[in-house]
């Protein structure tokens, strides 16, 4: 910086000024420029044109720099961005007409007063001025208020120069230069993005090199050339004059402009607390004191001012440094002008160099240091902000993680709850399965009842693929008059519901059959029950009634595969008696069909699982069943027959559907003899009587004889039941044999147990009745059991059918 002051910096003041150019030039042009500038630089500059701006203008010289209320700025921004450029021009021009004039006057007055001050600080007589404040005033006010206020500068410059110039023309030309320099300075500063807060190094560099040293070459060149042209100085004096002019203007910018620019900061930036005001006042007082003392004493200690200015810059930045620098420069300049203190006895050149060096050092130190500290503080603030933001982000992220964790925990809970529910569901399904299985077992007893006169066998094979229980079922019911009911059916569906339906259908069928064994009647009853179920099911049902005494079978078939009759190496289906499945039609119309089974024939009932195969028609399946069943050995008992059929038709480990089978074969009378073997239980007495009754009737024994023989044989059997096996837990066998011969009827009742001594409950009557009703009663007791032989003469004139 010091290097930029190569020559004696003398301000040529009075008498060197040119004429003043007309300030009242094209106002339209001014407005247009202003609007264009506002468009280019946003609300801050546009706000300078708001009416409110002018109210703070102080005519005393602080003039231009007036704070922009935040609301006003925002309003201007909004208005600007919302409308067209033309609208903004007219609006700002219209609203600021009166206040603008006021501000123009204010700026002009400030400029003029600054010039008078400058002229009062001459180094030599009234001619040499080392500090020219008006340029600083012009730069600062045009920076804050906008370049459109240049006419005020122009008018004031003309007013200043007119009395001290050789001719009005010279004054005007000089004024043009004095106006052009600040305008160019402001233009350049705006171009590089200068911030009047001066809080960055680049702002400090910009105002030093562009605002002060660069732009002021214009005014210095124009001014000094004008001096030469007007004949005020010689051509040889041109460099010197130019150098003096230049340094004076530059110092004016460096010293005054920062001070003026710092003033708005007092309300634009965070307000100072009282402590800082106290500190600021103290700094100013110390600075004033130090520079005053240094200026008055003979000792060359002006440099002591620098630490004070540095202190101000460090502590208070521009707001402390600029006033301190201004005061220091003014005092030093005044001291040089009065030739007092360190300047006493100095040559003019030494004075100039010393003063300008001091002023430059103070100015540069002040706002470079201030900018440096501002930058540091901004950086610290940015760091702090960044840290705060980081902390906020960490907190935010932590919160997010916590939320995610909470969600995860909740999800885990929900999942485990669902799992538990699933477990319950599974357990429920398993329970249902168990219940259904229990029901199924109760429906399908392992052992069929012993029914005298017929042989029975049954099988049930659940599906392997589907672990659910099927709806297949069968039943054998012993009916009054020795009739035997056979039922086989299939309830649609699986599981508990189907099993429950099966139970109800089975029970209903039993009840209806006992009431009236007629197949259509039984079907009608079951139909009525199924129709009333809460969930109506489709039930196929084949119901037959077999009369062993006549070997006649009557049946009704509700949608079930037909029963098969096997005999003499051939098979035939019991077709007819058909109706739709129960539960399908609203009212069941049931008919029955009858047929007499041949001696030794076998009746086979089954469910569709036996004959239905994927890809094989039902007709083919039925044909195959008929062939295979007919081909079975004629002497095979029913158990073997069932096993044979299952082996033939079912693939092991892969039963697609449940299979149920019942086989029934009327007991063949072997040579007219009856042979029975049953457990010796009270409930079987009726079976014995039934079988014996049938046999007697078949053999043509008269009814009166039948009744009495039944009583006698019944007593013998009852004795076996009561006494033969009382010493052991399980009932043994009761054998009954009967034959008709020439000598009459022989009935043998045999047991394999040990009799207790007689004289039990009513025991006396048993033997009494036997003896009364029969012609002969013999009781043989052996270690292996007891035999009772009953003999009676009967008429057997009627031969067996």
């Amino acid at each position, binding site marked *: 910086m010091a290097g930029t002051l190569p020559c004696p910096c003398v301000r040529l003041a009075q008498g060197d000024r040119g004429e003043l150019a007309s300030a009242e030039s094209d106002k339209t042009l001014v407005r247009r420029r202003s609007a264009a500038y506002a468009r280019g630089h946003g609300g801050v500059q546009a706000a300078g044109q708001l009416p409110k701006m002018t109210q703070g203008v102080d005519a005393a010289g602080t003039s231009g720099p007036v704070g922009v209320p935040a609301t006003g700025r925002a309003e201007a921004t909004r208005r600007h961005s919302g409308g067209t450029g033309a609208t903004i021009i007219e609006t700002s021009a219209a609203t600021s007409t009166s206040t603008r004039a006021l501000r123009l006057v204010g700026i002009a007055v400030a400029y003029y007063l600054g010039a008078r001050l400058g002229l009062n600080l001459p180094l030599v007589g009234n001619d040499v001025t080392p500090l020219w404040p008006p340029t600083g005033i012009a730069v600062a006010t045009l920076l804050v208020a906008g370049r459109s206020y240049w006419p005020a500068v122009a008018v004031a410059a003309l007013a200043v120069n007119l009395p001290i110039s050789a001719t009005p023309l010279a004054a005007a030309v000089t004024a043009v230069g004095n106006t052009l320099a600040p305008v160019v300075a402001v233009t350049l500063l705006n171009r590089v993005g200068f911030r009047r807060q001066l809080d960055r190094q680049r702002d400090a560099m910009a105002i030093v090199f562009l605002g002060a040293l660069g732009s002021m070459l214009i005014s210095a060149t124009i001014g000094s050339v004008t001096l030469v042209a007007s004949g005020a100085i010689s051509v040889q004096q041109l460099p010197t004059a130019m150098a003096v002019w230049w340094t004076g203007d530059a110092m004016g910018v460096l010293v005054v402009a920062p001070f003026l620019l710092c003033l708005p900061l007092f309300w634009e930036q965070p307000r100072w607390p009282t402590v800082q005001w106290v500190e600021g006042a103290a700094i100013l007082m110390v600075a004033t004191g130090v520079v005053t003392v240094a200026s008055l004493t003979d000792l060359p200690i002006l440099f002591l001012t620098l630490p004070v200015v540095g202190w101000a810059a460090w502590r208070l930045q521009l707001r402390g440094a600029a006033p301190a620098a201004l005061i220091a420069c003014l005092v030093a300049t005044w001291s040089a002008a009065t030739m007092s203190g360190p300047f006493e006895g100095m040559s003019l050149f030494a004075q100039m160099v010393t003063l300008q060096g001091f002023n430059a050092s103070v100015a540069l130190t002040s706002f470079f240091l201030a900018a440096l500290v501002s930058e540091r503080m901004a950086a610290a603030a940015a760091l702090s902000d960044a840290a705060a933001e980081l902390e906020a982000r960490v907190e935010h992220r932590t919160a997010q993680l916590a939320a995610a964790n909470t969600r995860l925990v909740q999800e885990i809970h929900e999942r485990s709850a669902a799992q538990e529910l699933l477990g319950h569901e599974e357990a429920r399904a398993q329970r249902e399965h168990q219940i259904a299985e229990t029901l199924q077992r109760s429906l399908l007893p392992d052992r069929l009842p012993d029914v005298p006169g017929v042989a029975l066998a049954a099988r049930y094979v659940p599906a392997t693929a589907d672990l659910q229980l099927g709806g297949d079922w069968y039943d054998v019911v012993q009916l009054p008059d020795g009739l035997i009911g056979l039922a086989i059916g299939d309830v649609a569906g699986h599981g508990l519901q189907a099993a429950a339906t099966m139970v109800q259908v089975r029970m209903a069928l039993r009840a209806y059959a006992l009431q009236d064994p007629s197949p259509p009647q039984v079907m009608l009853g079951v139909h009525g029950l199924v129709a009333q179920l809460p969930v109506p099911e489709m039930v196929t049902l084949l119901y037959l009634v077999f009369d062993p005494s006549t070997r006649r079978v009557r049946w009704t078939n509700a949608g079930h595969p037909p029963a098969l009759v096997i005999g003499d190496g051939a098979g035939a289906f019991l077709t007819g008696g058909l109706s739709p499945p129960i539960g399908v039609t609203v009212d069941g119309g049931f008919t029955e069909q009858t047929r007499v089974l041949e001696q030794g024939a076998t009746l086979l009932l089954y469910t569709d699982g036996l004959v239905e195969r994927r890809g094989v028609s039902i007709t083919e399946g039925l044909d195959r069943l008929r062939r295979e069943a007919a081909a079975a050995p004629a002497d095979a008992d029913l158990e073997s027959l069932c096993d044979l059929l299952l082996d033939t038709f079912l693939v092991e480990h892969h039963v697609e559907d449940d299979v149920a089978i019942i086989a029934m074969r009327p007991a063949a009378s072997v040579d007219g003899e009856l042979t029975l073997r049953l457990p010796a239980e009270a409930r079987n007495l009726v079976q014995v009587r039934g079988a014996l009754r049938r046999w007697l009737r078949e053999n043509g024994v008269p009814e009166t004889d039948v009744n009495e023989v039944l*009583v006698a044989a019944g007593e013998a059997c*009852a004795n076996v039941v009561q006494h033969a096996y009382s010493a052991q837990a399980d009932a043994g066998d009761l054998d009954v044999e009967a034959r008709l011969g020439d000598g009459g009827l022989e009935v043998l009742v045999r047991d394999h147990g040990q009799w207790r001594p007689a004289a039990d409950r009513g025991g006396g009557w048993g033997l009494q009745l036997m003896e009364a009703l029969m012609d002969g009663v013999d009781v043989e007791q052996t270690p292996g059991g007891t035999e009772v032989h009953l003999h009676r003469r009967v008429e057997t004139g009627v031969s067996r059918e």
Partner: protein
Amino acid sequence: MSDLARIEARRTGPAHVVHVTGEVDLSNAQELTDAVARDVPDDVTLVVLDLTGTTYVDSATIATLFRLSSRLRERRQELRLVVPPDSPIRAVLELTHLSHVIPIDEQPYAVPSEPPEPPELPEPPAPRAPGGVDQSSG
């Protein structure tokens, strides 16, 4: 087997009439007479067992009928039987001399036209029943 026989009771005038249908033997006799005794109201003086629909009885049945009779007598209630002449159980009843203890009528019970007789004295086993139970078989 409870399927073997059914009982049906109803109040007829001063009597409690029970119809027994089916066969009665060792397997259900006790159960059946227990059921009859249980259902007899306290305010009747006569219990009639109508065995018209009964097709079979055995000695165990006879024994339980004796016991039923004595139980009712303790309650000062009379037991009578109805058995048609052609009933298949007639022979057993006669051979066991049941009628010596329990009166047996051939006709179904009907409400007497005149007021009922005052309660009769407890009846010791009569030496001979007045009815025409006189058929024997060789």
